[in-house]
């Protein structure tokens, strides 16, 4: 990790969890958002730098069709969400990637768009993948209404009344994005072109800004339509109800391979979070503010867990674990926790590891980090990655050293018999129709000969076999000349030796592997809440629920 030499708390290293413990899918699938999550980093920066926000364009008619521009004005640069609102027949509304029309479409523009820019975007953004944006745009996205809630809120506001609070809480959003593309997709600016900007250097900041401004658009739109329908008597959404609304998101397998394709980035995300936990555990005492902040975080987690629902069997069991764990944590904090221990946070953590299921341990982690902003927020600056420097293979590495790396970091992979049906049951591939990642059943479906190289464990085991008869001092370059099929595994092993949290330490083609575990880990780093799987491979979540709105930050809102 690039910040290692600058670590102000080297003693925290003794409190770090091992990658073998952290990088298992079953635990990653219990991840919770923390104050290091990307949307939290965005909100903190905008607040600290006193960003200003306005809406210079609102050209939306009484049917909700038109365009709008929302600006976020930072100390150096301005970014603008350009929104196009459409009249979408219910029968064509689909969250899936095959959809061709949406209730609203968006692009995040770099600067303030001119009328000519808006016309160019109007000709392309509503088409999404079938259109083309430019390096002046940082993201491309679309959203669909939660029709039942949107119509309810609209009808109530038009009559001058407030919507039903329980309905709002149950759904949690007026619209949900179904894709948010950035990083060079469909003509947008490449990551490398913007990564040096301080406000965009943390991962996914442009995408988070786009979604946050989209949230403001969803409320503006429903209030606009209520005024169009109800005239003078129409009400605006009450601040309390408005605050509880986020932006929903439907997400499928498309984002799962990202974490495997970006091992250094994954390492930096995980290592920052683990270092944060270690720093808290290493504290020799508990401050009054930290204790109060921790208890407030636990209370917030309990409220969130009460409102968090899912129809999926796996998630329902996890929610039961979560609620039970939070109750046990509260009881232990009130009565059992030795706050005078040499390292009281570590004492609490160790209790949690003994007493709680994984879901409870990971929510305890998030709550422990919450009151320690001064101690850990700087780690957010270590969560991006220069992946190019990690790419070249060290051909001079002796085979003996490579063998030792595999023994140290791939023990989880080397003992598996990948010829067993259950251990190779799945294969990842790119779909012919949408060029999107998919998951196939190897023994039932065609196409396995074109599978993506996400079988990281099987590759490591094959490399281990290839090394068996090789001299210890043989350089890797010679090995790869003779056995080039091991190239990917050699690269991953060399990366993992330097970045120990780079590899998900599970068989990603096994029958029991759950892609939603990968999704939950990634989405927790985004800051997503209300993780709600609809199958083992796609989910709905909420972003920015209970976060401030642009007008709140214009006036100096609560800490993010």
């Amino acid at each position: 990790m690039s910040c290692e030499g600058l670590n102000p708390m080297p003693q925290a290293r003794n409190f770090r969890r091992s990658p073998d413990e952290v990088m298992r899918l079953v635990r990653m699938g219990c991840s919770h958002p923390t104050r290091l999550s990307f949307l939290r980093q965005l909100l903190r920066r905008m607040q600290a730098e006193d960003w200003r926000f306005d809406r210079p364009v609102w050209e939306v008619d009484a049917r909700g069709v038109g365009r709008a521009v929302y600006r976020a004005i930072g100390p150096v640069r301005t970014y603008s969400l350009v929104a196009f609102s459409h009249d979408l027949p219910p029968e064509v509304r689909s969250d899936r990637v095959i959809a061709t029309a949406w209730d609203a479409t968006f692009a995040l523009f770099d600067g303030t768009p001119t009328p000519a820019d808006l016309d160019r975007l109007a000709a392309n953004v509503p088409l999404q993948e079938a259109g083309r944006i430019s390096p002046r745009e940082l993201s491309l996205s679309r959203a669909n209404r939660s029709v039942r809630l949107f119509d309810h809120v609209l009808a109530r506001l038009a009559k001058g009344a407030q919507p039903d609070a329980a309905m709002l809480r149950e759904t949690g959003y007026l619209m949900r994005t179904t894709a948010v593309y950035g990083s060079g997709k469909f003509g947008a600016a490449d990551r490398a072109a913007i990564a040096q900007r301080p406000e965009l250097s943390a991962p996914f900041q442009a995408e988070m800004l786009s979604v946050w401004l989209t949230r403001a658009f969803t409320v503006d739109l429903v209030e606009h339509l209520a005024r169009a329908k109800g005239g003078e008597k129409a009400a605006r959404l009450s601040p309390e109800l408005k605050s509880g609304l986020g932006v929903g998101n439907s997400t499928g397998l498309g984002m799962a391979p990202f974490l495997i394709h970006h091992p250094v980035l994954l390492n930096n995300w995980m290592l920052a979070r683990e270092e944060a936990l270690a720093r808290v555990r290493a504290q020799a005492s508990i401050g009054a503010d930290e204790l109060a902040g921790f208890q407030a975080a636990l209370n917030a987690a309990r409220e969130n867990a009460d409102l968090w629902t899912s129809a999926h069997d796996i998630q329902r069991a996890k929610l039961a674990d979560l609620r039970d764990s939070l109750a046990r944590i509260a009881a232990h904090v009130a009565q059992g926790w030795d706050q005078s221990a040499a390292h009281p946070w570590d004492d609490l953590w160790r209790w949690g590891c003994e007493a709680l299921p994984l879901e409870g341990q990971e929510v305890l982690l998030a709550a422990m980090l919450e009151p320690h902003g001064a101690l850990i927020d700087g780690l957010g600056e270590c969560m991006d990655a220069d992946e190019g420097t990690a790419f070249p293979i060290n051909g001079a590495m002796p085979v003996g050293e490579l063998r030792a790396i595999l023994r140290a970091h791939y023990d989880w992979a080397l003992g598996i018999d990948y010829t067993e049906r259950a251990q190779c049951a799945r294969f990842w591939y790119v779909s012919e129709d949408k060029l999107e990642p998919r998951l196939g059943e190897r023994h039932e479906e065609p196409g396995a000969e074109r599978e993506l190289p996400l079988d990281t464990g099987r590759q490591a085991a094959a490399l281990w076999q290839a090394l068996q008869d090789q001299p210890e001092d043989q350089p890797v370059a010679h090995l790869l000349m003779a056995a080039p099929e091991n190239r990917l595994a050699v690269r991953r092993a060399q990366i993992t030796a330097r970045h120990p949290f780079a590899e998900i330490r599970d068989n990603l083609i096994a029958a029991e592997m759950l892609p939603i575990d990968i999704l939950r880990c990634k989405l927790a780093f985004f800051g997503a809440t209300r993780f709600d799987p609809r199958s083992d491979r796609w989910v709905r979540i909420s972003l920015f629920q209970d976060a401030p709105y642009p007008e709140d930050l214009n006036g100096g809102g609560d800490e993010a």
Partner: protein
Amino acid sequence: MKHDPRTDAGLDLTLSEISALTTRATRGAGRSWGEAEEAAEAACWLARAGLDWAGALLEVLQPPEAGADCALRTGIALADAAALPGPLVNTPLRVNSPCFLLPFAARMADQTGQRIRLTAAETRVVLAPGACPLIASPGRMSGPAQVTLAPDQQDQPPSPDWPQTHRGTVIAAKYARLTQLMMAFTVPTSAHSHAGAGAQGDDND
């Protein structure tokens, strides 16, 4: 196909798109995943240097003619071996795309910390560690051609700055060929996968 950035004036791809297209086209051409990753990295390097990444890529994805080696495989082997003890071998190579050797020669320069000179007929390119390539003597970079790689100890002007923007341009015919190769690595989505990904049910919640 999901996405087609063609315009009347040609195609202009981002680095992200060049990387994805190159990886998939290389794999679709029957190369290994290891080679596909290397090809994508090399294509992006060429684009950043303002060179014809698509033309060079298509050259290396063709089976090399008799007597010539694949520049991708040759480049990978040379870059892997760059950090090994001993002098850089200064033997002539015959490859199907001298241009596609440049990114690997650049990596050799990075690994050894010394300037590397690539010579192909009248063309001379100098690669300093981390620097944009210096075209010391311009000429034809397409192949097949005989190439020499050697440490460069001659006085040279400073390497140029990396261009502000990469060269993403690719003519329609080359894009079509790369897309054709890419599609050979895709798989029709199964009904099972469709269903699990949410194809069933109503999204009007």
